């Protein structure tokens, strides 16, 4: 299986030399397969956003290497190919929309790639339809809700036809409705368009049906596995200050009280099914 992104022994410090800052990333080794839905969780300062910026060469590792489709991010001649392959969506939707009209903003990426106008039109239509914002193509961004703006930002990345989208806490500034819109859009893109998704978040519920969950703490990978494997480790997660999904927490409490219940229950449906059996 081809790996879309590989991180090999990646360490990173924001400043080197005299005033050496403590490393933000410590010897990280990760490999992501094509088409996977990966969730990265960790509390503030765990290094997850710094890691995200390594995936499209906004930051370069101090030690080690990051490869995007076998292109080394340190190799300047691949820079634009890397950024086109791995698109990055940021936390604040307001600060990543460039143009004053939705469709022009979605066209911004393809325009930068030097794609012919007719092809850009097709891509804009495809991207806006994929995130369900086609009816809003002539709107100015400030007339949209937070969730809609974030979907426009995602469309702006999709229009560049990336193979992988890295989302850095895309729902942190949104209300619950906006959050639901964005998450279902991301899931749809992963399932229907086969785009690899790396979702960085601190909402556990958002990664419950991911293919793989990675937990970071203090610049290191603490846990790595399927959601069931990861959320089973309630004690470990609690120790580094993370919450588990409420249902999992409930199952954990019940187990402690001596009730025989599996520790890998993640959704309400699973819980209901188990209890009613």
């Amino acid at each position, binding site marked *: 299986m081809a790996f879309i992104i590989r991180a090999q022994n990646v360490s990173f410090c924001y400043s080197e030399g005299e005033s050496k800052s403590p490393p933000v990333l410590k010897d990280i080794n990760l490999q992501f397969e094509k088409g996977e839905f990966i969730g990265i969780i960790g509390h503030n300062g765990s290094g997850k956003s710094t890691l995200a910026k390594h995936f499209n060469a*906004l930051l370069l590792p101090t030690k080690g290497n990051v490869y995007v489709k076998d292109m080394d991010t340190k190799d300047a001649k691949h820079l634009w190919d890397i950024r*086109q392959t791995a698109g990055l969506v940021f936390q604040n939707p307001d*600060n*990543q929309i460039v143009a*004053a009209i939705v469709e022009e903003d979605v*066209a*911004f990426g393809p*325009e930068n790639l030097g794609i012919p*106008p007719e092809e850009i039109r097709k891509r804009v239509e495809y991207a806006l339809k994929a995130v369900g914002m086609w009816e809003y193509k002539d709107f100015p*961004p400030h007339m949209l809700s937070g969730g809609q703006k974030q979907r426009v930002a995602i469309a702006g990345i999709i229009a560049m036809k990336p193979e992988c989208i890295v989302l850095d806490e895309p729902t942190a500034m949104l209300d619950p409705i906006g959050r639901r819109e964005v998450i279902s859009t991301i899931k749809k893109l992963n399932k229907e368009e086969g785009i690899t998704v790396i979702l960085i978040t601190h909402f556990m519920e958002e990664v419950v049906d991911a293919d793989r969950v990675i937990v970071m703490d203090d610049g290191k990978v603490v846990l790595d596995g399927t959601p069931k494997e990861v959320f089973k480790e309630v004690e470990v997660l609690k120790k580094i200050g993370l919450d588990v999904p409420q249902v999992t927490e409930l199952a954990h409490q019940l187990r402690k009280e001596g009730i025989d219940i599996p520790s890998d229950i993640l959704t309400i449906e699973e819980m209901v099914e188990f209890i009613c059996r």
Partner: protein
Amino acid sequence: MFRNITIGQYVPGDSAIHKLDPRVKIIITFIFIIAIFFINKFSGYIFAMLYLWLVIRISKIPFSYVLKGLRPVIVILLLTVSLNMFFTPGGTVLYTLGPLKITSAGLKFAVFMGLRLIFLIIGTSLLTLTTSPISLTDGIEHILKPFSKIGVPAHELAMMMTIALRFIPTLIEEAEKIMKAQMARGADFESGNIVNRARGLVPLLVPLFISAFRRADELAIAMESRCYRGGHNRTRMKKLEVHTRDYAALFITGVIVVLIVWNRSWAW
């Protein structure tokens, strides 16, 4: 307080004037401005007036909107007219007010200058009334593009204008939010004299500036990760196309210019 601020003075519509290619409209406006300076007698203004009247009628913009454009320059207008009126030598003295004299030549020249200014302003505001800021930016970028070889940063200018247009509403919203937050803590923006009011704006402007810089920083990173590398090798989704109506507009403007220039040699 900020709600009623609109960007530019664009009046949306779908008239033939609205649909003209922005490049053509900008060029026509320039031709018109230059033509105005060729007028050397009152009869020449008849053609200019006819032309403007035609444009206003076709664009279906209410006349009051067009006149509104004159309001901000009324002081300059009055100043120009009165300076020319009192300080142009020659002609017969019509009226004396202390050391000031109004001469017939002065009066004529003053009215002349006044008309020239009014026509200039109406002509240019017709451009901004019928062209959205976005297509205006597109037009400017395309017109300046040939000059980028001699160092005119055409793409950069257009990009800056686009970003400004994009962020003005966002920053207005933010200013309102900060203002409410400061008012909740007892800041006073509405009373006192001008000096006090200006000082009252400090707790609004400082956070606004800091946030604007933070936004600029994040936007730059977001643009870079969307492969932005300046105007080099960049294509545009929207292509500007010159249609028949653009040629027609250029032709009519040309006729007016010829009439104005010809008018210079007339007796009256």
